[in-house]
């Protein structure tokens, strides 16, 4: 196990290096610069700024500077937000995005699994059709529409939630639901199909024959196997929820990191682009690793260490 994790960490470092390199060069190939605006700066001032931020150095030197920044975890000041460093932006923005993401994942998994199981147990009955209709809606309605819809009905019409902002627990509910709707629907469908497959297995019939109650069969025997695809999906889901919360953060005025992830590119805020990309890459790589490990724990058939060669 330790050997396996060690190997995976090594791969992670290589992936990270590839990501940093690709980002660096793509960023530099893109036209424009961080000081561009509709009111053009006098050329002397612009040259002075370029020199200050080291943008006049040859590319290989800038590239090595960046690598050093990544290793020492010091990305320097933001070009645009002069009162903050990139490290500040990440340490202030990420906890917010993380909380929102976790809340959304919780809702998505809890309700998704619940709906999926109900639909599978009541296959082709009204419960199945209702939950699957909800799931189709959840998948096909984009999150920003869902967000406006929730704001309109639950905040403006019914007045039970605030429209936007990030102040109290109340404020977190609408954005979390809006963010969770898509993944929840996906999980529900995933759970349903895998549950139906598992329920048709011989060992479930055996359990039934033994006279076990249907509740015990569902929870103890069927769900454990049926949830494997859901666990697999959790890795990419975590990553996509954390990085993809931009739209929701914008609509609800949430001071998260997703905002910087997107606007730094429009602003050509080089240091922020680099910092946020590296940070999110690490999150993604770690999430995938955790899922792989969890996979091995849930399903003993999967051997992580890949031992027993030549069997």
């Amino acid at each position, binding site marked *: 196990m330790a050997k396996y994790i060690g190997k995976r960490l090594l791969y992670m470092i290589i992936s990270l290096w590839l990501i940093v390199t690709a980002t660096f060069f793509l960023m530099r190939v893109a036209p424009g610069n961080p000081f561009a605006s509709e009111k053009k700066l006098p050329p002397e*001032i612009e040259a002075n700024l370029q020199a200050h931020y080291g943008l006049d150095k040859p590319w290989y030197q800038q590239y090595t500077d960046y690598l050093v920044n990544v290793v020492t975890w010091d990305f320097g000041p933001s070009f645009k937000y002069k009162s903050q460093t990139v490290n500040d932006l990440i340490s202030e923005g990420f906890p917010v995005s993380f909380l929102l993401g976790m809340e959304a994942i919780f809702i998505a998994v809890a309700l998704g699994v619940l709906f999926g199981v109900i639909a599978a147990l009541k296959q082709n009955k009204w419960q199945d059709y209702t939950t699957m209709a909800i799931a189709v809606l959840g998948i096909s309605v984009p999150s920003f529409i869902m967000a406006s819809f929730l704001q309109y009905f639950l905040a403006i019409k019914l007045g039970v939630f605030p*429209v936007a902002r990030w102040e109290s627990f109340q404020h977190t509910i609408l954005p979390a639901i809006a963010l969770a709707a898509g993944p929840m629907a996906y999980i529900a469908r995933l759970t349903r199909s895998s549950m139906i497959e598992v329920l048709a297995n011989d060992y479930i019939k055996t359990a039934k024959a033994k006279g076990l109650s249907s509740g015990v069969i569902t929870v103890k025997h069927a769900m454990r196997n049926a949830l494997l695809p859901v666990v697999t999906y959790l890795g990419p889901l975590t990553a996509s929820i954390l990085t993809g919360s931009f739209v929701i953060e914008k609509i609800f005025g949430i001071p998260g990191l997703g905002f910087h992830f997107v606007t730094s590119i429009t602003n050509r805020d080089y240091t922020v682009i680099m910092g946020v990309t590296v940070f999110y890459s690490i999150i993604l790589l770690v999430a995938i690793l955790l899922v792989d490990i969890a996979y091995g724990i849930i399903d003993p058939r999967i051997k992580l260490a890949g031992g027993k060669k030549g069997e």
Partner: protein
Amino acid sequence: MKKRLSIFFSMLLVVSMFLAACGGGGDNADGGGDGGKDVPQELKVNINTEPPSLNPGLAQDSTSGTVLRNIMEGLTRIGQKDEPEAAMAESWEISDDLKTYTFKIRDAQWSNGDPVTAQDFEYAWKWALDPNNQSTYSYQLYYIEGAEAANTGKGSMDDVGVKAIDDKTLEVKLVNPTPYFLELTAFYTYLPVNSKIAQENKDWATDAGDDYTTNGPFHMTEWSHSDKIILEKSDTYWDKDTVKLDSIEMVMINDPNTELSMFDNGELDWAGAPTGALPTDAMQALKDNGTLVTQAIAGVYNYKFNTTVEPLNNENIRKALSHALNREELIANITQGEQLPAMGIVPPTMFPENEKGHFPDNDVEAAKEFLEKGLEELGYEDASELPAIALSYNTSEAHQKIAQAVQDMWSQNLGIEVTLDNAEWNVYLDKLDNMDFQVARLGWLGDFNDAMNFLEMYKDADGGNNQTGWEDPEFQKLLEQSQTETDPDARLQLLKDAEAIFMDAMPVAPIYFYTNNWVQDESLKEVFVSGLGDVQYKWAYFE
């Protein structure tokens, strides 16, 4: 293990039910606004985004400007008559050649009790001019003698024409008599800085706190980055009796629909310009129910012609294109913000006669004549022989809709084929700088309330904001004369003549003059929005 799983899932169920139900408890307890005297003087506005910098020397955008204008004060402040009034300077003398200003600084205090001194101004201005400090708006100070040389490293900081004669006297020497200099001293690059603190802590402006001292109507008590800023009435402000608001909460919501929803729900007292934005789709409804407030501001939306490429190097072709536009229709159907059709380049807030402009709107007959002349000069028989003209804009729904309408007008009215070309903002600016376009849209919002600000950029073909490749010796001569002319009326006439030359050559087809549109709480009074579109809360109150 199996038991634990089932417990886990039943807990999930319970928690999710709780989540679904728990909204019901919290009502927005707004104890009904009864018309008593004790109306809470607490304003909630949206400022859209995090202000990039609240150091006056580093600020260069309208969001930072909005915050700074309300917490700091320069030598002058734009008053409710939209003219500069005495502020930190209680009086001033101007020399006969109009090039030396001597300001007497008022007995005013910073929020920590330090006196505001002439040195604070000298320090702040020289700090912004120091090339080591990366101020991007330092060129706003180039009206001061020696400032440009010092900022570009060609001269010494000692030769900059700003000097604190004593604690309360500031002498400023200018390059030219600048009739709008007292406007400029209200601008944020000209704000003072508490030099005692700034010298000790170079990061004084990165957060609210003891080191962020202010000398304006409000004091910043909280700055939660990318989230909100809280201002409270300053009790050290010299004119604190005028200030009625106790606090201002500035939130950062970057979505027009959310902003309007929050306003509708009572979570904001103001939605829309100048600090936020209204969704275009909602304009008509807001107009219909009579709540939309519209105010003209000094800004113009332009289509710039690249006069270095055929056929746009031909004056008559440019005129044909500009005359063939139906601006009235564009505004009524597309922009929907009550903008004014622009047939001139200087906004009517400065030249009132530009409400009519230099030529009639939608003059298709004249456009056709110009086209014929232009085609003849270029050696074409018919408009259909012209190669398609590319119309460029930066990616945005609003710009796209306007471009599509213009494409249609040019093809209907003149038979000219037009292709549309959009690019992401930074890529777009790059194309403009490299003159890699034929017709391109660009807006200009005034920095100070003078026509010079709208004409100066077209003086030299290689000027950074010209972007048309056009220049004209006569135009240049008039602008130069205006800079040394000491008689205000004669100066105004020079500028008007310059504009006439510009409009006759038409290197730019102006489309419309900007307006600010907003909705506000009915009981909120006296929020002042200047002709430049800058907002001040100094006089605001709830009744």
